[in-house]
């Protein structure tokens, strides 16, 4: 149980910090760090850098993007659940 409590506490702490920062209103936008890095590139090159390639396909909306991200998590979670379920079941059988 000790491990579960520690992991739970770490996640709760991260969320508490997030709520604290979000609540203190420092103008945080909670965008992706990669987007911010693109901003840094723009600053460093004084806005002269043009990406030389664009994604072949982009999710048409934020909803569809989150659908595909959830799908990714779900595929992984199914495999993890199957793995532990199968071997735990076999062990106790």
């Amino acid at each position, binding site marked *: 149980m000790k491990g579960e409590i520690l992991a739970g506490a770490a996640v709760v702490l991260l969320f508490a910090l997030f709520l604290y920062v979000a609540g203190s209103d420092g103008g945080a936008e*909670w965008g992706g760090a990669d987007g911010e890095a693109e901003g840094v590139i723009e600053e460093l090159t004084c806005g002269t850098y043009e*990406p*030389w390639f664009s994604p072949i396909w982009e999710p048409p909306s934020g909803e569809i993007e989150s659908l595909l991200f959830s799908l990714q998590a779900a595929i*992984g979670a199914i495999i993890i659940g199957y793995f532990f379920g199968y071997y735990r079941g076999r062990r106790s059988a």
Partner: protein
Amino acid sequence: MEGFLPHPWWEVWYALSLPIVIYGIYKINQLAKERRETLPLLALAGAFIFVLSSLKLPSVTGSCSHPTGAGMGAIIFGPAITAVLCLIVLVYQALFLAHGGITTLGANVFSMGIAGPVVAYLVYRGCMRSKLNFYVSIFFAAFLADLATYLVTSLQLALAFPSATGGVLGSLGAFGTVFALTQVPLAIVEGVITALIFKYIIQVKGDVMVRLKVIDDKRLGKLKEMVSA
């Protein structure tokens, strides 16, 4: 970040990653032939990367980033095989999510699939040699691997975009603030979760990990099984 790595650099990172990915594929084939009992663990390591790298978490810096999950695969299978697992996830994200990118794939495989895993592997081996607690070793390996990944990402961008005033080091500071700083709390969470999942792996597949994979000393493995049982 598609198209954001200019001409010499995207090829450089492709060239550096390619041999390691090929070696990783060779090693996976070897596993499939000679140690089939390890394949479920390989699937687990890949699935772990799938889940963790899909979770964009808010950090204290007011922006979001995601853990990598690569530490687990690196500890069990080593960096080369983990590079292949990361490649699969990175291709999925580049094609279906416009996250990462095909032109930056080489750089991303290098930072997430090679640099991070090498750190995880070395830190884990070092910690175990110095007889540190198993779960603490896993924590440090996954935590430092996560940070290393984003430090290397910052370095990759800094090399491609040296600052006019501060050079590579100047822009390393700028990219590091964006990536590495945001990553610190997420890396801690990743370290703790990776340590937790190893508790379950020890319980159900300790035999494969401890004895056949020669990852742990038999004695240590047995001790841990007793602790976690």
